[in-house]
């Protein structure tokens, strides 16, 4: 049985009544990649995954694997593995019976089943757990069993539907590394659904950012992180500061100068903007520098409003002279009411096409 795929390709539309949940959502990917669907709840990412799995019918569209069209196959014929947010273990079966379920359906000899279950339990680092029931396991252990249950069949595609969102913060980081390890060591092709950008960035070879059933940006994590194409993606990728401004000058090298709201800003853009265009300047809180010369470009006088202690750093909200609020991450220990100068390094300021800036 072939255990890996060379290519995955789909284009799907899904409507529930009058509501379109996925609009021509398309992907083309090579095998052995880790692909993530990233987006806020309700963007259609889980629906897309369920359609790929065959658990939901698409209203329109096609799903192809290695040149074979599979969207009319029932889920049990697709040879995919799936891991669910709430683990979905069979509560009336032992850990052994849960993991062995798929193999037993294939009528494999008992000795082989027992051996492979044992190997799987070693792989997910829960040896000796055969006789337990799901209710006797912690959330993290249940999710490991769910992963073992899916992997024992050597699925040609592994689908993970927010597998970490029910775990606590510490366990989530642990399991994230675990999933990455399994994906790499077993040479899997995986699709991972999440609303957590850290998970998406740390796990993926390819990130697909979704909004309202549409693909808004797809690319390697560094690309999405450094060059978001829209305010929506930028917001999702941790840009907290957005300033609506007008372009005053644009260079051929992508450098842009803009002004508005009593601010003058220099930065860079991937898109070509004509002078006079309405754009949004964006910068991450960690890229803002405290200090500098307020007379020079991109530096502004400000007053500290709120200081949140985060340990190594503080999260600070300052109000600029021009009246705008700015989120800053800094190790400089500031006090409420203090007057400071903030500098927005031009190489860190990006300009994006104007749309409704997030609140």
């Amino acid at each position, binding site marked *: 049985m072939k255990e890996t795929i060379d290519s995955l390709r789909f284009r799907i539309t899904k409507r529930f009544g009058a509501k379109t949940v996925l609009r021509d959502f398309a992907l083309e990917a090579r095998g052995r990649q880790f692909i993530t669907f990233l987006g806020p709840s309700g963007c259609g990412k889980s629906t897309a995954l369920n359609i790929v799995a065959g658990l939901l019918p698409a209203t329109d569209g096609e799903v192809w694997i290695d040149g074979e069209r599979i969207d009319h196959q029932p889920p049990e014929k697709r040879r995919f593995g799936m891991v669910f947010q709430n683990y979905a273990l069979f509560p009336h079966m032992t850990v052994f019976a849960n993991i062995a*379920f798929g193999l037993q359906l294939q009528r494999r000899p008992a000795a082989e089943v027992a051996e492979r279950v044992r190997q799987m339990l070693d792989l997910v680092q829960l040896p000796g757990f055969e006789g337990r029931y799901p209710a006797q396991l912690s959330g993290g252990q249940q999710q490991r069993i769910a992963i073992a*249950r899916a992997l024992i069949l050597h699925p040609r595609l592994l689908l993970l539907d927010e597998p970490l969102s029910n775990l606590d913060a510490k366990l989530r980081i642990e399991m994230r590394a675990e999933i990455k390890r399994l994906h790499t060591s077993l040479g899997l092709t995986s699709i991972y659904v999440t609303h957590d950008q850290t998970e998406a960035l740390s796990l993926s070879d390819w990130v697909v950012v979704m909004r309202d059933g549409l693909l808004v940006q797809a690319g390697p994590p560094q690309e999405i992180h450094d060059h978001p194409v829209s305010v929506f993606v930028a917001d999702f990728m941790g840009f907290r500061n957005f300033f609506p401004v007008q372009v005053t000058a644009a260079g051929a090298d992508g450098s842009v100068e803009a002004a508005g709201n009593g601010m003058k800003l220099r930065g860079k853009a991937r898109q070509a903007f004509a002078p006079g265009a309405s754009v949004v300047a964006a910068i991450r809180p960690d890229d803002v520098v405290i200090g500098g010369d307020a007379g020079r470009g991109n530096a502004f006088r400000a007053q500290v409003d709120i200081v949140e202690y985060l340990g190594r750093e503080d999260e600070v909200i300052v109000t600029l002279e021009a009246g705008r609020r700015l989120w800053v991450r800094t190790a400089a220990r500031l006090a409420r009411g203090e007057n400071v100068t903030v500098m927005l390094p031009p190489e860190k300021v990006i300009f994006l096409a104007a749309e409704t800036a997030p609140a």
Partner: protein
Amino acid sequence: MRRPRIGEASELDLMAVGFLLPSVLYVVVMFIYPFLYGIWVSVHPLKVPGFSLANYIAFFSDEYQYKTVGITFRLAVPNTVVVVALSLFLAYNMRRGIWLERTITTILVLPISLGVILLGQGILGFYGGKGWLNQMLLALGVLEEPLVLTHNYIGVMLSLFMQQFPFCFLMLLGYISGIDPSIENSARTLGAGPWTVFQRIMLPLIAPGLAIAFALVFVMSFATFPSAILLGQPSGATRTIAIAAYAQAFEQFDMPYASAIAVIMGLFQLAALLIIIVLRQRMVLAATMGVGKR
């Protein structure tokens, strides 16, 4: 639970007793006393002075009386099996919601809210000898003679089914749709087809609810009285044990004998419940092993 310390105990107990008193009183006055009184009356027959099991002996030595037990079982068991099986089939297929679900559910709840008498009258009007169904079939020439669907075994079965199916169906629908759909979805992705999913995953998870539904429908069917009188043959084919008790009490005015019959009926119901609960216990054991840590 925290153990009360010495000195604290009496105060805590008094509080508990104080809060329990009204409900305990209600249960004693409305249920326990009449129940025990019924048993006491049943062992003090009219014709024999003092304690005697004469009424019980009389019931089991009179064929006209003891065959009511068989008649009641012959009504209750098939009715329960049909009601539970059909409810399971429909509820299982409706577990992910269907078109017009709310309307269908409302229609199903109606018979429960109307009461047995109105329902019985409706059945007589529709299925009776001169009812709509027979008139229509005769007029269409499908039948030569009207179908006899009332005042017999079939009539009682129809009535029991209509009363109990909605109740059982809604109960099972709630139970089944409460099972996390990702459980069956994961079974599908592991290679199980719809029938395997039902058999190996869903049925074991539904089993405890199924047992409860079976028990409740059986007990209700076993106690049937108005249906058996209105739509059956209360002196013959559908003379259930409840009718036997009623006849002793209000036709023969032999309260002790009537009480004995009622007690016998209760014991049969209790025995059936016990069997079902024991079976359920066995089925649930595996499903809920060691619940606690999650």
